[in-house]
């Protein structure tokens, strides 16, 4: 019941996002969309996914989108023509996807293959094999450790891509060479030192004091989420985003220069790779100890303890990569 109401809210918001022309309002609606989908994920019992959505949607997504808006002129370009071809592609793809769902078993069907073979095995044996109460974590970090390694690599690749785009663009266009039509609409990037997101807000006493009080708690909460992924919803992805949110809050209020003094851009860039390296390194270590790649059981004398240690290490690697990527993106967007 609740899920249907939330789903219809989602549909309405999606339509509104498509219809609205003001990009700023669209950013706001996207934030709302993410709030709703987090609630929907909770209702559908996908708590870990909801956690990720909550952490990303609550702050970081808005900030990064605002950063993007600050870089482009903010006015949507008028459409030159009716986009018939894209429309056709979307319709065909959507139709094919809908057709595909016809063959899928119903949601929660006890006779679906996945509920007959894979799921019972995870539910019944994971506690004995991995020794971690949160099954999602044991699937994500141990049974499907390869996939998660791949996802973390995707994050690294994305970070490299964005870094290449933004840094490259900066070098080529030193301000004056911007297209003349939009040059008067670009945000003023005063003397090129810091941009819109990078300035300090020290004169806002209330924000200043509240940030001072809250930042340590946000950081600690992130670490709590990091290390309790085994027991409840949480883990490296969520923790990384929350930690980055705390750090970015500091950067927003005290300025990107101060944030750079706490963790320099070069350090942060190094940490992006270090997290992934830790993850892959655990895999290599298990191979050297005679096991298979990412088979944590060999890390300790007892298989369960080894699993525990391995999961903790790779989750920490994921968290480091995610947090460093987010902070790095913030640095890039705030110049």
């Amino acid at each position, binding site marked *: 019941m*609740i899920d249907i109401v939330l789903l219809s*809210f989602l549909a309405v918001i999606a339509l509104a996002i498509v219809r609205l022309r003001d990009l700023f309002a669209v950013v706001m609606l996207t934030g709302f969309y993410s*709030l709703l989908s987090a609630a929907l994920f909770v209702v559908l019992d996908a708590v870990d996914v909801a956690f990720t959505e909550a952490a990303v949607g*609550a702050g970081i997504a*808005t900030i990064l989108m605002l950063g993007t808006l600050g870089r482009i002129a903010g006015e949507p370009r008028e459409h030159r023509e009716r986009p018939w071809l894209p429309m056709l592609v979307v319709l065909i793809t959507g139709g094919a996807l809908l057709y595909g769902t016809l063959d899928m078993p119903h949601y929660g069907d006890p006779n679906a293959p996945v509920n007959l073979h894979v799921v019972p095995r995870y539910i019944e044996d994971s506690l004995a094999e991995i020794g971690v109460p949160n099954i999602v974590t044991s699937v994500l970090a141990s049974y499907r450790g390869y996939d998660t390694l791949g996802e973390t690599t995707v994050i690294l690749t994305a970070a490299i891509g964005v870094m290449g785009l933004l840094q490259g663009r900066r070098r080529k266009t030193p301000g004056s060479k911007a297209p003349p039509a939009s040059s008067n609409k670009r945000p003023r990037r005063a003397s090129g030192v810091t941009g819109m*997101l990078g*300035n300090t807000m020290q004169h806002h006493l209330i924000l200043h004091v509240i940030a001072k009080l*809250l930042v340590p708690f946000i950081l600690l909460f992130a670490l709590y989420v990091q290390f309790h992924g085994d027991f*409840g919803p949480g883990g490296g992805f969520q923790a990384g985003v929350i930690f980055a949110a705390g750090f970015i809050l500091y950067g927003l209020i005290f300025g990107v220069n101060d944030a750079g003094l706490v963790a320099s851009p070069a350090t942060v860039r190094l940490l992006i790779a270090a997290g992934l390296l830790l993850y892959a390194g655990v895999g290599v270590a298990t191979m050297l100890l005679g096991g298979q790649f990412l088979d944590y059981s060999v890390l300790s004398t007892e298989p369960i303890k080894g699993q525990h240690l391995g999961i903790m290490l790779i989750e920490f690697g994921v968290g480091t990569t995610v947090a460093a990527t987010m902070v790095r993106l913030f640095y890039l967007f705030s110049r």
Partner: protein
Amino acid sequence: MFIAAAAAILVAMALAMIRVLLGPTVYDRILAVNVLGTKTVLIISVFGFLTERPDFLDIALVYALINFIGTIAILKFFEYGEAGFSNPEVTRDEERP
């Protein structure tokens, strides 16, 4: 009783959503999204109790802790972003009879 509370939250969400869609100024939309953030915290908490799995509360805690960061970024956007950039809506509203 939890159901009644959940229903009230959903209806209130719908009301706030109308304000998000109507605007008229961009600040009204932001305000409504903020209110919706609070309601999301509530519905997640209430739903946790409804299904007797209070470990959902961590998610609600995340929202309570970091949901205001976006608003701060918005304030910053208006202070340092390009003047007049997102004002067309405001002026449109002011010009209204």
